[in-house]
């Protein structure tokens, strides 16, 4: 098999601190035009840091080379398949980047007068309108800077609406197949969480739901399709039960890629949903993104949306409307990650409604292609039809002493980023694969061949997997030690 990822520079890069010491700074400061003095004369002593012994002084080219070499250690979606389940690591079309670099957008300042930023405001308004239309909801905020931030914002909106009704209530119900951030968002918003056990098909158990619905329940937070990739077939009945209880239905939209353009959450009875633009809408994901987690809502929640919102004056021009008396306030500086919002708009406009539907169809097709070709080698705990991702586990390999982590590490040797492992928690030893729609059949076949090779190795030479990775720069880390006793700053004594 051809080596898929070339080991361009196979040496390990040392830290800047470990480079040969010396005063090689090439940074020239302009001459002082103020009297010189001691730092301590200007800055309170308690704020002054001690000198850092061994602080590296390097010239420009050394620093550039250091970071360029580090960048070659990276694995990214421009290098190959990135099948990290639940993360939708799709390709980010370069046209998004091209548009985001247009100086009128890239150099706009958030404090510029509205008259000079009509184009930027139009981008925000247009994206808002399209997200509302795509999801079948009534309003949206573009401010949240990440998915979990969107979740928190959504929960704050629910709390505000319930408070306006007279009682914020106390509990949030969360199925055990939901995303791990959901309980954290609910707790951060002052709610206690109650876990709902999934039924045998991995969906919400309606009897379990009925048992838990009481006057203290503020909302049900569900991920659709759930983390098994299974669509909640009773979603309309779930919505009916939740609404009859005076509660809200929150949909975690992280998996929206599975049904965008095919069905609309608003038609299913969803009240609040966050969208991960860095997943479904092809903006950069990983390495800090930055992300964007807009929240779409139904009519009752619109008055509480964060401010400002883009509105239209009678003369047709746009302005930022701060006159929102019931708003929960700002949830981010200015208007969210504008450059990211712009990229998402570019993606939506380029795809169009037919294109977005095809995104979902191809994402589902790709995942099922992998599922079909790997299900002889890997155990599938939940066997019902799945959408955009498939969750295998290590049951077939466990008897040979090979576990999920071993196979994930072996994938690194063979040139692929591993899938999500050990999540969702309801499948012990989970291997969660989400190829996205971006991949060609050839790429999928290469991944399938590699996974089958690993299954064969597990039968014939398990040690190869238990010792993996061997062919990349670093062998297996002691992750437990790193988490228990993290060393977060460079220490000279740490050197051998």
């Amino acid at each position: 098999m051809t080596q898929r990822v070339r080991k361009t520079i196979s040496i390990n890069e040392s830290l800047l601190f470990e480079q040969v010491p010396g005063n090689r700074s090439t940074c020239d400061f302009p001459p002082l035009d103020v009297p010189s003095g001691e730092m301590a004369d200007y800055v309170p002593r308690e704020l002054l840091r001690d000198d850092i012994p061994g602080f590296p002084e390097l010239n420009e080219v050394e620093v550039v080379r250091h970071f360029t070499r580090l960048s070659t250690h990276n694995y990214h979606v421009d290098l190959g398949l990135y099948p990290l389940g639940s993360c939708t690591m799709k390709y980010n079309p370069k046209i998004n980047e091209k548009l985001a670099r247009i100086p009128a957008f890239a150099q706009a300042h958030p404090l510029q007068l509205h008259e000079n930023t009509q184009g930027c405001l139009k981008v925000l308004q247009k994206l808002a309108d399209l997200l509302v239309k795509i999801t079948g909801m009534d309003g949206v905020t573009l401010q949240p800077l990440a998915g979990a931030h969107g979740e928190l914002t959504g929960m704050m909106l629910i709390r505000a609406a319930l408070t306006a009704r007279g009682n914020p209530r106390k509990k949030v119900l969360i199925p055990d197949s939901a995303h791990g951030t959901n309980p954290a968002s609910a707790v951060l918003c002052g709610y206690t969480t109650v876990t709902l056990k999934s039924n045998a098909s991995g969906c919400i158990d309606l009897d379990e739901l009925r048992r838990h619905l009481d006057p203290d329940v503020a909302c049900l937070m569900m991920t659709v399709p759930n983390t098994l990739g299974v669509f909640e077939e009773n979603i309309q009945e779930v919505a009916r039960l939740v609404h009859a209880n005076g509660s809200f239905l929150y949909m975690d939209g992280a998996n929206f890629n599975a049904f965008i353009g095919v069905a609309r959450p608003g038609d299913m009875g969803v009240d609040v949903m966050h969208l991960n633009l860095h997943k479904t809408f092809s903006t950069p994901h990983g390495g800090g993104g930055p992300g964007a987690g807009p929240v779409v809502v139904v009519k009752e929640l619109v008055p509480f949306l964060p401010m400002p919102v883009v509105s239209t004056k009678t003369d047709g021009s746009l302005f930022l409307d701060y006159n929102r008396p019931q708003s929960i306030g700002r949830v981010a500086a200015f208007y969210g990650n504008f450059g990211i919002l712009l990229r998402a708009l570019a993606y939506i406009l380029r795809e169009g409604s037919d294109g977005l539907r095809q995104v979902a169809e191809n994402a589902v097709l790709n995942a099922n292609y992998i599922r079909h070709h790997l299900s002889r080698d890997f155990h599938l705990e939940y066997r019902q039809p799945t959408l955009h991702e498939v969750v295998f586990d290590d049951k077939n390999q466990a008897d040979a002493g090979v576990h999920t982590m071993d196979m994930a590490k072996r994938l690194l040797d063979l040139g692929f980023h591993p899938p999500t492992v050990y999540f969702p928690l309801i499948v012990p030893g989970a291997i969660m694969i989400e190829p996205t729609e971006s991949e060609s059949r050839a790429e999928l076949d290469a991944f399938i061949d590699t996974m089958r090779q690993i299954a064969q190795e597990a039968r014939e030479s398990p040690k190869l997997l238990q010792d993996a990775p061997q062919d990349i720069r670093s062998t297996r880390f002691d992750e437990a030690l790193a988490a228990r006793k993290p060393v977060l700053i460079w220490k000279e004594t740490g050197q051998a």
Partner: protein
Amino acid sequence: MYSDDYLYTKEHEWVRVENGEATLGITHHAQEELGEIVFVELPEVGKVLAAGDTLGSVESVKAVSDVYAPVSGEVIAANDLLADKPELVNQEPHSGGWIARIRLSDKSELDGLMSADDYEAYLGEEKKH
């Protein structure tokens, strides 16, 4: 592996009752499933919990898992040793890796927990499915 002196929950906690006080932790099976534990979030002493409430959490290299109060009552002690040595939960899950002690407010709740035999049968069931 599973002592008859302990009671067990479906969420894989164990409980040992002495003089109206319940010492609890996670079972050998639970620590094995979680893998190497890197952090244990302990409950505050003095906190009053109802059975089923989240008491703390256990974090491993694989996952974070809630620990639920198997019985209702006030937390009277937490195993502070785990702050520096979370690996005790792996090494001695049923003794040195205990997590908290609760003063029982309702002894009848113990009737709802499993015996060692029942728990082992339950583990067998879980494995099959």
